[in-house]
């Protein structure tokens, strides 16, 4: 692959007190790639992607996003956050703001976009995730699936180059999972670089270029999607796949 490397993690280590949550993580993500991260709970998947936009701080190793090396400087952190969008398991919409305001807040105050432009942009992405008719409602008035789509639109309004998804469908009722995955599939097809922590294996098979399996803080298997499912090598991967499929 001769595409540009947009994320590079080099020997990243992280501890919570005594607990070693990330062990020597090496990971490269190329422009337009879709990566699924899976593994048992507590294996450090969420922590890994949260280290990419500094919601968690790593203690050793380097994290590079495009041209920016992540360090203690607010400047580098804010630069990276403005290029990396994130979607959370619990949606984390701002409950005191309407859906439209949720989407326009960051573009107008971080990007300093004029109000009108921010609203047009928000409506464009709300239409894309098919909830433009809910724009003036408050998050509490929407279903879980609608809230998660609104959260995706909110992240897209910052026009990120990379999107991180932290178990985006785990908190949803089964009938709502599809509507969120459909939106994510559309986004993937449009060429967005995505790292998705998820156990939706059907989704992984459909969109992922590579699948990463983590266990106890290490990446134990990393393969192109087809090989990952047809020919897993590690015992723990095999066990995990047999339980989940």
């Amino acid at each position, binding site marked *: 692959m001769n595409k540009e490397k947009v994320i590079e993690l080099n020997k990243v280590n992280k501890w919570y007190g005594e607990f070693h949550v990330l062990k020597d993580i090496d990971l490269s993500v190329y422009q337009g790639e879709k990566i699924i991260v899976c593994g048992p709970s507590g294996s450090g998947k969420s922590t890994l992607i949260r280290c990419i936009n500094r919601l968690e701080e790593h203690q050793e190793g380097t994290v590079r996003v495009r041209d920016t090396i992540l360090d203690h400087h*607010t400047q580098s952190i804010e630069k990276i*956050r403005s290029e990396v969008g994130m979607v959370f398991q619990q949606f*984390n919409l*701002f409950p005191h703001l309407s859906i439209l305001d949720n989407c326009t*807040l*960051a573009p107008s105050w*971080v990007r300093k976009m004029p109000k009108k432009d921010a609203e047009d942009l928000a409506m464009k992405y709300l239409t894309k995730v098919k909830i433009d008719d809910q724009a003036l409602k*408050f998050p509490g008035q929407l279903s879980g699936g609608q809230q998660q789509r609104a959260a995706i639109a909110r992240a897209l309004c*910052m026009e990120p180059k990379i999107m991180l998804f932290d178990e985006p469908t785990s908190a949803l009722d089964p009938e709502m999972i599809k509507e969120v995955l459909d939106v994510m599939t559309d986004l993937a097809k449009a060429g967005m670089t995505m790292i998705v922590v998820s156990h939706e294996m059907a989704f992984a098979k459909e969109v992922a270029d590579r699948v990463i399996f983590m266990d106890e803080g290490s990446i134990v298997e990393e393969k192109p999607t087809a090989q990952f499912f047809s020919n897993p090598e590690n015992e723990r991967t095999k066990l995990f796949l047999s339980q989940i499929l």
Partner: protein
Amino acid sequence: MKIKNLANWSRQNLFSSWYNSLISLFCIYLIIITLPPFIDWAFLSATFDGNLKTDCKTSGACWVFIKVWFEKFMYGFYPVENIWRINLSFLILILSIAASFFVRDKFKIYILFFLIFIFPIIAFILIHGSFGMQIVESREWGGLALTFILAIFGIIFSFPLGVLLALGRRSELPVIKYFSICFIEFWRGIPLITVLFAAAVMFPLLLPADTYVDKTLRIAIGIAIFESAYIAEVVRGGLQSLPKGQYDAARSLGMGYWKMNFFIILPQAIKTVIPGIANTFIALLKDTPLIVLVGMAEILGMINLAKANPYWLGMAVEGYVFAAAIFWVASYFLSSYSQRLENKYSTEKK
């Protein structure tokens, strides 16, 4: 039909069981022995007309006392010809609060800005005098006007300071964090009366001889700082009730510390603690009479002076009932305003 309804209602609500009946009967008894005599004293046998104590010949309340002293109770020893300046200040305040009910949300921030930064200056210039207006030294301020000046000053300054302290206490920077903790715990740990004595008596001794800070201002700052510690703890309660995800979401969108707190965290945190904030402000309002002890005559102080006047001896009850009524009305206003805010924002949340 009506009687039947009443009977039904009282059976359900007053006499549903033997112990409820007992409590109800006891309460009815209390009302019967207290309310009619009070109404008789305060209204039926009371004297409203006249200008002298000797005009009060009945057994009831002598409201003449209040009538004659009313202006002093309201404005203290403020020069009569300048009272319009106090009235104008309060009118501006009331109008801007009233306006906040009617304007759209995005203008409210301007009203808030006006109240915090501009109104205190205007009010000070008006009440103290300047620009050709006669200067009225703060020792001449008094009565209910002084009560309100101190309470409003306290509210306007303790709130932002308290919010900053609450944020400071949760800061990741150790210097700010421990400064905030020490500050809050110090001011929460001492009684208000100590603060007042320190501000009135001790503080001037610590200053160089040629500097002078107005006594009323010292007291007002003392009260504001004292209350800010309480506000800080109330607001901190609200900050702690917010899920961590709100911080994650705001940060992941690239918001820095101040934007995150201003747009996302504080609006939600403060909303959940409106009752606690109202509580603190009501307590602040009711604490102001303590300044009597450092020789300032707000409304209770003026009543104390008036009842000690040789021509008006024996009027303490009327005076204190009047003061109680005024404080009750003011506190009730604060509490209903806070309930209004609460309802308004709870409907938005759903």
